[in-house]
C-alpha cells in the first residue's frame, strides 16, 4: 500500500525580511505515514512541527527533498487540488477558518470548490455535520457558537471533502477543556472509521492514544515509536525539553523510590490498573 504521506530528506528554510541568511526550520526529515494510522507529532514551540504540517498539503513547498501525498509530488502545481482533497487540514483558530455566516454554507465550501453537483454537496454537508454532532446547528451563525462548536464545524468543513487523511495542527490550543474533549472524541471516532489522522500538538496527554508518536526538535525527528516506548524514557524526554504525561511521571517517581512499575501505562485507567496490580 502506498504511504498516504511520505517525506524524503525534507528540508525547509525561510528568509526573514531583514536578514540575509536563510533560517533552516526543517533539516532533513524522513517520515512515512501508512493509511489508517493515527500519528501524533509532538514538539515544543519553534520545533518546526507546524511548518511540517503545512508541507503535507502543499501550502508550503520543500526547499530541499520531496513530499509525496498518496504518491503525488506536492511540488507539482497541477496536482495541488488532488493533493488537498486527499489531505484535509484543521487549524488552531476556528474563527479564521470560516468563510460563511451560515454553518451549513461554510461546511459546503470545500465540496463547492471541488465542483460537485448541489444534491451531492447537500448529502456530504449533512453527513459531515452529523459526524461532528452539529447537525442541529446547521442554520446558525458561527459567531454565536462556542469555540469548541466552531472547531467541530471546521472539522466538518474538512470531512465534507471526504479526505483520506486529516492533519490537525494544534486543534485544541484555543479551546476550553470541554471543547478539547469533544475534538479529541471526534479524532478517536475518525481513526476508528479508518481515516488517517495526523495530530500536531504540544500537549503530551493528547498523544497517548496514537498508534505512533513522532517527536520533533530543532527540525529533526528525535524519537519515533509507540507512545508507550517513547514516554518510558523519562530522562531522555526531559533532556529534550519535553515532559511526559502525569501518569508516567507518577509511576516514574514511584520507581525511583524502589517500586517496579511498568511505565507504559499512559491513560489514567491504565495507570490505576498498574498501581492496583502492584499494590493490591
Amino acid at each position: 500500500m502506498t504511504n498516504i504521506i511520505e517525506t524524503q530528506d525534507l528540508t525547509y528554510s525561510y528568509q526573514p525580511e531583514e536578514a540575509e541568511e536563510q533560517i533552516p526550520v526543517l533539516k532533513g526529515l524522513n517520515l512515512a505515514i501508512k493509511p489508517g494510522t493515527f500519528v501524533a507529532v509532538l514538539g515544543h514551540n519553534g520545533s518546526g512541527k507546524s511548518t511540517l504540517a503545512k508541507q503535507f498539503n502543499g501550502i508550503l513547498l520543500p526547499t530541499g527533498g520531496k513530499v509525496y501525498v498518496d504518491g503525488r509530488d506536492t511540488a507539482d502545481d497541477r496536482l495541488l487540488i488532488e493533493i488537498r482533497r486527499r489531505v484535509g487540514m484543521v487549524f488552531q483558530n476556528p474563527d479564521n477558518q470560516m468563510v460563511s455566516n451560515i454553518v451549513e454554507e461554510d461546511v459546503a465550501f470545500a465540496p463547492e470548490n471541488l465542483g460537485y453537483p448541489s444534491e451531492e454537496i447537500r448529502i456530504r454537508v449533512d453527513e459531515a455535520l452529523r459526524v461532528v454532532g452539529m447537525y442541529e446547528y446547521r442554520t446558525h451563525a458561527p459567531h454565536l457558537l462556542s469555540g469548541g462548536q466552531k472547531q467541530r464545524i471546521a472539522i466538518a468543513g474538512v470531512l465534507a471533502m471526504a479526505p483520506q487523511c486529516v492533519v490537525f495542527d494544534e486543534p485544541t490550543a484555543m479551546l476550553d477543556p470541554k471543547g478539547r474533549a469533544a475534538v479529541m472524541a471526534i479524532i478517536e471516532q475518525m481513526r476508528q472509521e479508518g481515516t488517517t489522522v495526523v495530530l500536531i500538538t504540544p500537549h503530551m496527554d493528547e498523544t497517548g492514544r496514537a498508534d505512533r508518536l513522532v517527536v520533533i526538535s530543532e527540525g529533526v525527528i528525535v524519537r519515533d515509536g509507540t507512545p508507550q516506548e517513547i514516554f518510558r524514557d523519562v530522562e531522555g524526554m526531559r533532556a529534550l525539553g519535553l515532559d511526559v504525561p502525569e501518569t508516567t511521571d507518577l509511576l516514574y517517581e514511584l520507581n525511583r523510590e524502589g517500586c517496579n512499575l511498568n511505565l507504559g501505562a499512559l491513560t489514567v485507567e491504565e495507570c490505576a490498573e498498574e498501581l492496583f496490580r502492584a499494590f493490591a
Partner: protein
Amino acid sequence: MGQYFPGDSVIHRMDPRTKILGLVIYIVALFTAKSYASYGLMLLVLALVIRLSTLRLKMLLKGMKPLLLVIIFTAFLNLFFTEGEHVVFQVWKLRLTIEGVRTAGFMLARLVMLIMGSFLMTYTTPPMALTDGMERLLNPLKKIKFPVHEFAMMMSIALRFIPTLVEETDKIMSAQKARGADFETGSLMQRGKALIPVLVPLFISAFRRADELAVAMESRCYHGGQGRTRMNVLVMQRRDKLGLLFCLLVLAATIALAVFGL
C-alpha cells in the same frame, strides 16, 4: 443599515435577484414620476409591499433616523432655492415660492420612498443571499473580464468577519481601558487620537486573520470561481416572475403618466 429581520413572508421567500431587480425598477419609476398621480401610485406600491413583507412601519421609520439630517437638508435647499414666479415671502436671500414648496414636497417624498424601498430589500434578505444574488446578476460582466466572483467573495468574507472584528474591537478597547486609556472625554481631536492604540492592534490582527483564512481556504481546495458549484442554487419561482412583472407594470404606468402629463 444592512440589517436583516428574519421572517417568512412572500417578500422574505422571494429570490434575492428579484428583490434587487425590483428595487432597481422601483427607483427608475420613482425618478420618472412627475405628478401627484404617479407619486400616489408609487406610495400605493410601497404600502402594498410593506404590507406583504409583514414588517412593521415603525421599524422602517426607525432605520431612517440616521438619514434624517440629509433628508431635511435636501428639502430645505429645494424649498428656498427653487426659481419661481409666485413668491410667498422673502427674507434676505431666502425666497419661498409655490414652485419651491411643490419641488421640495416631491423631493422629500422621493427620498423617503427610495430609502424605504432599499430598507425593504435589506430587511427581508440575509446579507449572504444578497451577495449571492448580486454575483448571479453580474455574471454577464465576466465577459468583459470584470472579477464578479472575486468581488462577491470579498463582500461575503467582509460580512462574515464584521461580528468577529466588532468583538475584537471590544476586547482591545477593554484592554486599553484597563491600562488607563480614556475614550470618553476630551475634544474630538483627543478622542480621535485615543483610538489609535485600538486601531493599530486591530489592523495587525486583521492582517494575521486574513493570512490564516487564505491558508484555510486553499487547504479546502479553493482556487477561484472556476469550476465552483453551489449547494444552494437560486431558482426563480412563480412568485418571482409575478413580482418582476408587477414592477415592470408599475414602471410602464409611471412612464405613461409622465408621457400624458397627468
